[in-house]
């Protein structure tokens, strides 16, 4: 376990000590909430002259959220986790370019520790970022309205979901990066993956307004599983497994598959 922990600590030290990176990490959630919350606010389209129309639409399409930001916040958490996972995974290429990877390859450490340190550290980063995002979402005007019965169990499971999501995605990106040597190639691949993952999900819009082909895609997107289950926790409160169990099991399956691939690929894939 030694190298896995010490390499994770290395990642976290680098993160905390880089003031610009840390600041951006902290400020980014604000942008996400303000920009996406204002730009994509579909609820503004609800005509105000129909009595009770707003509640009707919110219940039918937005899981009964009080406003769009309340609907959006869990989705934003999932997307932020996706980006955090992506950057962590990508940092393997920096280790390669700065020569550090060759040192790791020659050391008698389990190969998976190189990948797992990225996975673990991005979990920690995402937890910090998510907490900030939740606080900001509550503080902004017309912001996140938590269910009145939202409790500590809801919060803990919400973090669990985030961790599961990060685990899957940072593994996925690490696997991609292991063999990629050029930054340009990596950029192209991650851009290709990111936008579809973000928009073909229920992170920002309810699937009810999507065409049926897209609904099919959305249902298989881990971002949707995470966003939907966190939304249930945030908007319904009074924690119970029943509403989210399916999504959690999907996420678990996703994680297990990714972890198996990580172990195999990192064992045989790391070469100069």
């Amino acid at each position, binding site marked *: 376990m*030694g*190298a896995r*922990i*010490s*390499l994770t600590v*290395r990642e976290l*030290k*680098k993160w905390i*000590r*880089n003031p610009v990176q840390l600041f951006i990490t902290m400020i980014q959630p604000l942008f996400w909430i303000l920009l996406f919350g204002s730009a994509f606010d579909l609820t503004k389209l609800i005509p105000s002259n129909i009595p009770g129309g707003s509640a009707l639409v919110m219940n039918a399409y937005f899981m009964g959220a009080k406003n769009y930001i309340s609907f959006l916040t869990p989705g934003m958490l999932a997307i932020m986790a996706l980006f955090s996972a992506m950057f962590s995974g990508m940092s393997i290429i920096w280790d390669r370019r*700065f*020569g*550090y990877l*060759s*040192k*790791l*390859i*020659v*050391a*008698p*450490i389990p190969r998976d520790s190189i990948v797992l340190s990225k996975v673990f550290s991005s979990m920690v980063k995402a937890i910090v970022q998510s907490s900030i995002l939740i606080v900001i979402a509550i503080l902004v005007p017309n912001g996140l309205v938590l269910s009145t019965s939202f409790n500590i169990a809801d919060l803990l499971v919400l973090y669990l979901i985030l961790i599961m999501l990060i685990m899957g995605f940072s593994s996925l990106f690490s696997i991609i990066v292991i063999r990629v040597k050029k930054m340009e190639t990596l950029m192209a691949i991650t851009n290709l993956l990111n936008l579809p993952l973000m928009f073909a999900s229920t992170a920002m819009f309810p699937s009810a307004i999507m065409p049926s082909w897209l609904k099919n895609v959305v249902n298989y997107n881990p971002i949707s599983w995470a966003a939907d289950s966190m939304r249930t926790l945030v908007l319904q409160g009074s924690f119970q497994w029943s509403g989210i169990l399916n999504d959690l099991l999907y996420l678990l399956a996703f994680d297990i598959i990714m972890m198996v691939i990580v172990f195999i690929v990192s064992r045989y894939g790391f*070469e*100069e």
Partner: protein
Amino acid sequence: MGIIEVNKLVKIYKGGIRAVDSINLNIKKGEIYGFLGPNGAGKTTTVKMLTTMIKPTAGQALINGLDVVKDQAKVRKMIGLVPQDLSVDEDLKGIENLELQASFYGMSKSEARERANELLKLVDLYDAKDRYVSTYSGGMRKRLDLISGLIHNPEILFLDEPTLGLDVQTRTKMWDYISRLRKEYGITIFITTHYLEEADSLCDRIGIIDHGKIVVEGTPSELKATVGFDVVEINVDDSERFKNVLKDVNDIEILSDRTIRFKVSESETYLPILFKKIYENNLKIQRIKIEKPSLDSVFLKYTGKEMREHESEEDIMRMMRAIRRVR
């Protein structure tokens, strides 16, 4: 039995490039072995195979009797590597880099600290140990890199181009540190290099590799002896008369009526005899210059290339990169 034993080692990369073509090596414990060759000759590929980074296509390499493929894990514990490109983490402090490296080898925190301090003192970095590596100069980084390859007390240290991109002064200092390491720890050092002076001053034995094959091997003086001659250039008051004195010497060249040049196999023993003759013949010497054979001439003889000419574009790029990163 040598501490490094290599038998008919081959590496063929995808696309059929034979980077290393059936080489044999036998390196003794405590030796500093220099691996010389032009760019793309197969030096780094050999190091990568010996340090378990890549698998050989064929042949066998044993480190302390252990196979680099089958006993990979054990081999890794025994060796230290200082790769060609800098491999210290500049966002960490000097001491943190060493402690992190030590954790890879399962060393305890106190053990690591003790060893780190000892090594830091050895390369005069102790006072800078709590500074971030990003504030280090190029030479300091390279020194830190050097000792981080030694943190776990390996039996063999691989140094891949340890002084590439460093200025002459820093380079000479690095040699100093490297020989200090051998003196202190009796460690076996396998060093690849471009700089012939470096190989000459550091190495007990040298192998020259070209096109993936070892073309010649021996101690620096053995190798220099294969090129043969010392060149003596002498100014005398009468070169015609002087020629008669040199009757027993071949290859005499008269450059002007006062300057004459000739080759002898060993100037140290020949010159006293010559001086005696000059004295007996009542001649006067105005100036004398002796050129000893250098590894440059050895290199030229065996690879047909001048070392200097061979600093290819890739080299220059790498050097530029190293310099940029240091700033």
